[in-house]
């Protein structure tokens, strides 16, 4: 075997091992959480409110709360993010204003989540007087999700071949008809990926909901959008650090449910994406 071949062999092995290190943490996390938490998972655990200072019973209100927050976040961030990305890619000319917008988007994604929490608290809870509520929490999470959705949508739109736009425009279609029929449909898979990624993160964040919506202990379902809710990540934080004599199994079980929820969302997006990919004929 000559030296070049040997070097290639070594390179392959090094790259393979490094890649293993990338997937190891996620596999280990899932394994560890499942192993320690699966014993506490029961029908009661996911359908009943907590009892006895949260040491017994289930986490149903927190599951509902997290789902509500994810849906609320999506309702605000998806239209806002997708429409502004369409504007940036398809309509805006390259000028000072659009450069400012693009810079803002990049910087938004670099802001720590606790800062979003504080911003949401002063802006939505206090200034707009929404109170500690699902609405305030959803809006805060929505702002946090925006950069990812905008960036993903921009990339998805930019990856649609320019020729589609030229064909459509050359047939006398208006700009909007072109975007609506010849660009957006082919960008949907990319937009979906970005949206689910950012919503998965929103589902798992604690800091932004800390001051804006999360209830420490509220063993009933919310009555309106202005109500507080429990949420899985905050509940996990609370039972892991704030409640003495808490069975560790319950913490892991809560973590397991949160991971499962995010996994289900990803699964839904994979199915939708596969459906749209079938339409991709170029």
């Amino acid at each position, binding site marked *: 075997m000559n030296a070049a071949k040997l070097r290639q062999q070594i390179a392959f092995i090094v790259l393979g091992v490094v890649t293993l290190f990338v997937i190891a943490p996620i596999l280990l996390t899932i394994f560890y959480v499942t192993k320690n938490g699966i014993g506490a998972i029961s029908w009661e655990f996911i359908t009943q409110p907590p009892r006895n200072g949260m040491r017994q019973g289930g986490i149903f209100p927190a599951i509902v709360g997290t789902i509500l927050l994810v849906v609320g976040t999506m309702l605000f961030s998806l239209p806002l993010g997708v429409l502004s990305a369409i504007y940036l890619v398809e309509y805006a*000319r*390259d000028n000072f204003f659009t450069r400012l917008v693009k810079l803002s988007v990049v910087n938004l994604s670099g802001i720590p989540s606790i800062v979003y929490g504080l911003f949401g608290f002063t802006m939505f809870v206090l200034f707009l007087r929404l109170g500690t509520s699902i609405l305030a929490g959803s809006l805060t999470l929505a702002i946090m999700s925006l950069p990812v959705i905008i960036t993903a949508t921009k990339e998805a739109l930019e990856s649609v071949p320019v*020729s*589609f*736009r*030229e*064909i*459509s*425009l*050359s*047939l*006398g*279609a*208006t700009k909007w*008809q072109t975007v609506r*029929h*010849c660009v957006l449909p*082919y960008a949907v898979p990319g937009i979906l990926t970005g949206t689910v990624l950012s919503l998965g993160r929103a589902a798992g964040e604690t800091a932004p909901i800390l001051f804006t919506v999360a209830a420490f202990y509220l063993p009933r379902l919310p009555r309106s959008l202005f109500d507080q809710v429990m949420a899985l990540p905050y509940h996990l934080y609370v039972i892991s650090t704030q409640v003495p004599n808490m069975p560790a199994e319950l913490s892991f079980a809560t973590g397991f449910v949160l991971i499962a929820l995010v996994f289900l969302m990803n699964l839904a997006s994979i199915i939708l994406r596969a459906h749209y990919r079938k*339409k*991709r*004929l*170029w």
Partner: protein
Amino acid sequence: MVAEAIIRTIDLNCWFGALTVLKDINLEIYKNEIFGIIGPANSGKTTFLRALNRLNYLNISYQQTGEIFLGEQNIRTLSDNILRKKIGIIFALPQVLPVSIYNNVAYGPKVHGFTGKDTLSQIVETALKKAYLWEEVKDRLSEPAARLSGGQQQRLCIARTLAVEPQVILYDEPCSGLDPISTAKVEDTMQQLKENYTQILVTNNTKQAGRVSERCGFFLMGELVEIGQTPVLFTKPRDKRTDDYISGRFG
């Protein structure tokens, strides 16, 4: 007989950024003729073509002076979508939308407000027949257009343009990616369309211009060097540069 001009350009100058692409183009194209535009690469042929339906403006660095008339109408007075409905274009490479054969042709009429199913399928059938593609695709209209051969795709593009009923059809090197047989079919189609449409053909292939066009213009480095009846231009060019190009001494 005095031929009626359907397209007239007056002192047309075009720039991309600081680069002058066309200089003082004054040109008349007559109704129902096939007008060939020949010239080497970077001579401004495509820019001229795309100036006629304002596609050049998709590039934000584009600027233009001079006037273009469609019939009696200055095209400045037409909106982009009306103008492009009247002046259709066929691109160099067959560019189909990633939808079915039917929907490729129906797209144009749809955006112009035709919605009835029967009306649409009638328009699609007529357009495909005019482009001499109907017989080859009538049983597979719902198949993806991308499955057609290159030549069929290019005729599908012609059908798609015909479906919005333009007055003028621009061809931007329509056969540059096609084999000789497909090329012949596209050229046949163009001959058949002469009756009802004015066609402008930009081509790198001088022989094709000779075969298809009635009159021809020779562009070189942004200038319209010479214009004339195709047989005359090809056999007795007045300008030395035209002679050099046609006899293959450069380009």
